[in-house]
């Protein structure tokens, strides 16, 4: 078995066994390495990436909104949002800057729960997540539903820290982490895809870590 370049502590997954171990608790070693997408390395800390100042919206002024191609837009205050049915999630996350973190623990509201509150137009096909500070990212609607994404407000049993996107961030664990918009304030449902902050400047529109969809044209 080869060693990943420059790492030493994590081995490159054997392509024939790798995916079979995803999600199972195994001691560190080949099974863990099988959960690390190509070109990524494992980290134990939680690196902070930021393209702008950390917004500090007071919770009394915070709201979460679903708008666009819905019969009636929906909006929740912070207090109302906390009353929505929440779930715990344990997910592996991969950042396009090449780190992967395993078994991250979150608590939040499934996007399925949020979308139950609106009536989607038949043309609804894409979603732009929008955030305090002006950040946007785009995800096809089918990739947000059926348990694939959530809006998190706790990380590791504590309120989500501002530098990690608190009070709330979108988490779409099966895509590169730039899709998991920090400081998220809502979802805009659209008929046509609209590239977001990074997708409009060289980053891949889709961003699947297992296909190494990092850049435009990958």
């Amino acid at each position, binding site marked *: 078995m080869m060693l990943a370049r420059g790492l030493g502590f994590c081995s490159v997954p054997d392509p024939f066994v790798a995916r079979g171990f995803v999600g199972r608790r195994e001691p560190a070693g080949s099974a863990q390495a099988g959960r690390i997408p190509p070109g990524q390395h494992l980290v134990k800390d939680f690196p*902070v990436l*930021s*393209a702008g100042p*950390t917004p500090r919206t007071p919770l009394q002024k915070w709201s979460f909104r679903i708008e666009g191609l819905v019969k009636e837009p929906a909006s929740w205050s912070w207090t109302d949002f906390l009353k929505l049915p929440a779930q715990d999630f344990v997910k592996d996350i991969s950042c396009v800057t090449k780190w992967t973190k395993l078994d991250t623990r979150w608590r939040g509201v499934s996007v399925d729960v949020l979308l139950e509150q609106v009536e989607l137009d038949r043309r609804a096909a894409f979603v732009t997540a929008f955030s305090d500070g002006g950040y946007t990212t785009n995800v096809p609607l089918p990739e947000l539903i059926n348990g694939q994404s959530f809006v998190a407000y706790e990380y590791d049993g504590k309120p989500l820290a501002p530098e990690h996107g608190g009070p709330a961030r979108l988490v779409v664990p099966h895509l590169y982490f730039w899709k998991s918009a920090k400081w998220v304030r809502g979802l805009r449902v659209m008929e046509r895809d609209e590239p977001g902050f990074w997708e409009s*400047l*060289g980053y891949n529109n889709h961003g699947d870590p297992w296909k190494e969809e990092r850049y435009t044209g990958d």
Partner: protein
Amino acid sequence: MTEAKGDDLVLDGNAVAGTLAEIYGDDMTTVLAECANCGKVDHVGGLLAYVRAPGIVLRCTACQTVMVRIVQTPNRTFVDVRAKRMPAAPRT
């Protein structure tokens, strides 16, 4: 690492002087850039620079509006200049 403001990852435009010089073929830090949102004029070297991200983002010192974005991929460099006065990047 953590400052009271929480803006612990911010540098200034001089920190990306080398990258800008590679793109423009010239020193850009003394070039003036005007914020398209609030009109504040700064030297490029004095803009706020966020570099610990998937790309480099230069922002207005007054209102934090994005003025320049740079993404370097293995094959090419993408530059988006929103600031007024500052020249668009030559084709990369």
